[in-house]
C-alpha cells in the first residue's frame, strides 16, 4: 500500500511539473509577456523597466525555476494589478466558489441520481426515455445560456429572484441551477449505467432469488455498490465546479474564483491568470490522487494489480 501511495504521489508530482512547464512555455512562446503587462503603445523604456522589475530579462530556465519556487512556496506569483500574492486572492475567493459549487452539487445530485436510478430500474420504458432526454438536454443546453434565460424569466418577467450578486439563498438558486445543470446530466448517465451493471450481476440475482422485497434489493444491495463510481465523479465534479464556473460567475456577477480569472484576463494580469490556472490544475491532480489512494485502500486488486 505504501509503495502504491509513493508511486501515485510521484506520478502526481510529475503531472504537476509538466503542467507548470506547459503554462510557462505557452506564456513565453505566444509572445512577449511584457506586452501583456504593459498598456498598448507603451514606451520602450517603460517596457524595459517592467521587464527588469518582473525578472523577465533573465534566461528562461532561471525564470522557470523562479516560477516553480513560487508554486512551492504557495504564493503562485504576485498579481500585477492587486500587487498581492495570487494565492491570497485565490483563497479569498474560494469560500464564495465553494458556496456556489456546493449548491450546484446538491442540485446535480437531486436531479441526476434519482433520475438515473429510475431510468435504470425502468430500463427501456418511457421513464427511461425521459431520463435519456434529460441527459441529452443537459449536455446540449449551455449552462450560461440557461442562466440568461432564467434571469429573463424569474428576475425580469416574474420578479421573483435577484439577477446577480451574492446574498441569501435567493441569489444562489439560479447560478446553482445553471452550474449544476450539466453535471446533473453527467451524474444521470453514470448512475444509470452503473445501476444497470450492478442489477445484472449475480449477487443481485441471488438476492432476488432469496425472495427479498424488490425495494430492499435496490436500496440495500444495488444502490450501495452503484454509488461508488457516482460518488467519485461527484468529487471530481465539485473540484471542477470550484475552478471552472467562469461563465456562470460572470453571468451572475458572483465573486468567485472564475470571476477572478476573468478579471485577470481583462486587466491583462498574466501572473494572476497563470496562478489561477495552475491552482486549478493542482486541485484536480490532488483530488485524483486522493481518489486513487482511497480506491486502492478499498479494493486490494487495484494496489496489487499495477
Amino acid at each position, binding site marked *: 500500500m505504501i509503495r502504491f501511495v509513493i508511486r501515485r504521489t510521484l506520478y502526481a508530482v*510529475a*503531472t504537476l511539473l509538466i503542467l507548470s512547464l*506547459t503554462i510557462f512555455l505557452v506564456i513565453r512562446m505566444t509572445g512577449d509577456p511584457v506586452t501583456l503587462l504593459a498598456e498598448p503603445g507603451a514606451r520602450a523604456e517603460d517596457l524595459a523597466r517592467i521587464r527588469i522589475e518582473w525578472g523577465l530579462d533573465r534566461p528562461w530556465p532561471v525564470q522557470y525555476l523562479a516560477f516553480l519556487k513560487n508554486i512551492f512556496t504557495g504564493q503562485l506569483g504576485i498579481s500585477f494589478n492587486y500587487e498581492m500574492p495570487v494565492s491570497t486572492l485565490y483563497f479569498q475567493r474560494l469560500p464564495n466558489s465553494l458556496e456556489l459549487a456546493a449548491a450546484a452539487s446538491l442540485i446535480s445530485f437531486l436531479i441526476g441520481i434519482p433520475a438515473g436510478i429510475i431510468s435504470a430500474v425502468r430500463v427501456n420504458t418511457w421513464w427511461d426515455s425521459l431520463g435519456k432526454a434529460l441527459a441529452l*438536454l443537459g449536455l446540449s443546453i449551455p449552462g450560461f*445560456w440557461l442562466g440568461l434565460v432564467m434571469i429573463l424569466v424569474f428576475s*425580469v418577467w416574474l420578479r421573483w429572484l435577484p439577477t446577480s450578486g451574492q446574498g441569501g439563498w435567493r441569489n444562489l438558486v439560479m447560478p446553482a441551477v445553471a452550474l449544476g445543470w450539466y453535471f446533473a446530466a453527467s451524474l444521470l448517465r453514470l448512475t444509470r449505467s452503473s445501476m444497470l451493471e450492478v442489477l445484472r450481476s449475480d449477487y443481485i440475482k441471488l438476492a432476488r432469488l432469496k425472495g427479498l422485497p424488490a425495494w430492499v434489493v435496490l436500496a440495500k444491495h444495488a444502490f450501495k455498490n452503484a454509488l461508488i463510481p457516482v460518488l467519485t465523479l461527484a468529487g471530481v465534479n465539485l473540484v471542477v465546479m470550484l475552478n*471552472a464556473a467562469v*461563465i456562470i460567475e460572470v453571468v451572475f456577477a458572483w465573486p468567485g474564483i472564475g470571476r477572478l480569472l476573468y478579471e485577470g*484576463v481583462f486587466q491583462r494580469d498574466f501572473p494572476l491568470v497563470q496562478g489561477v490556472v495552475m491552482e486549478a490544475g493542482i486541485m484536480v491532480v490532488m483530488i485524483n490522487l486522493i481518489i486513487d489512494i482511497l480506491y486502492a485502500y478499498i479494493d486490494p486488486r487495484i494496489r496489487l494489480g499495477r
Partner: protein
Amino acid sequence: MSTSDRIDAVVLAAEPRGGPVARRDWRGLLSELPILPLSILVPFILIAVFANWIAPYDPTEPIPGAKIFAPPFWMPGGSVHTLLGTDFQARDVLSRLIFGARVSLIVGVTGTLVAGSIGTALGTLAGYLGGWTDQVIMRVTDAWLALPAIVFAIFLATMVGPSMWNIVIILGAVFWTRYARVIRGEVLSLREREFVKLAEIAGAAPARVILRHILPNVMNSAMVLASLTIGVVIIAEAALSFLGVGVPPPQPAWGSMLADGRSMLMVGDWWLTVFPGLGILLVVLATQLLGDWLRVRLDPQLRNL
C-alpha cells in the same frame, strides 16, 4: 475473452433485430437513417454554406434608417424588414444568426478535426510503441487533462489572442487528450491481436503496421468520439466568444451575440438572448443525437451506455 469469443460477441451485437436480411432492404436502410438529427443539422449546414445568399443584410453593418433594438416583426414596434429585430448597432439579428451558424459549424467541425488528429496520432504512437514514448505522451495527456477544459481554453485564448482560426487551434489543443486516452487503450489491445502479430512476423515496418492495420481499426472509436466532441467544441467556442476572448467582433458568433444581448436582458429584450441560444441548443442536440446513432452503428460494445 478469447479473440473468437470477442468476434462472436461483436457479430451478434451488430445484427439488427430483424435479422441479417433486413439490412439489405432499401426501405429498411431509409428507416434506419437518423431522421431527427439530420432534419435539424442539414438546414443549419445549408444556411451556413449559403449564408451570403440567404442573409437579407450585411451582418456587420448597421441597416441605414433602422431603429436599434427593434423587436421581432410580430411584436409592437417590429418591422417586416428586420424579421427577428435589430441589435445595439441596428444590425439585423436574423442575418447575424445566419452568419453565426457558419462560425459555430466551422469551429465545431475543424476544431474536432484538429483535436481528433492530434489525439489519434499521439494515442496510436503511445499505444503501439510503448516504453518511453508511451510514458512521455501519457504524462503530458494527464497533465493537460488536469486543467478544466474551459479554464485551459481561456488561458490559451488570452495568450494567443482572438481570431476564429486561433480558436480552432486552441480548442483542438484542449480537447485532443480524450482521444489520446481512448485510442491508446484500444491500440494496446489491438497490438496483441493475431492479425497485427502476423503482419509484424511477415516483416511489415512499424509505420505500415500502424497505417494499414492499427489505424483502420481505431477509426470507428475516433468517429464516435468526434461526433460527441463537436457539441462540446461548439459550446466552448460560444463560451469563449461570450467572455470576449473568442471570435472577435464584428464577426457574428452566437456566443458574442449572447454577450451583446446581455445588457438588454434587464429591460426584457428577450430576442437578443433567446435566438442565439436556441441556435446553439439545436445544433448541439442534433450532433449528440447523431453521435448516439453512430455509436450504436459503429461500436456495438458501447451500445448499452
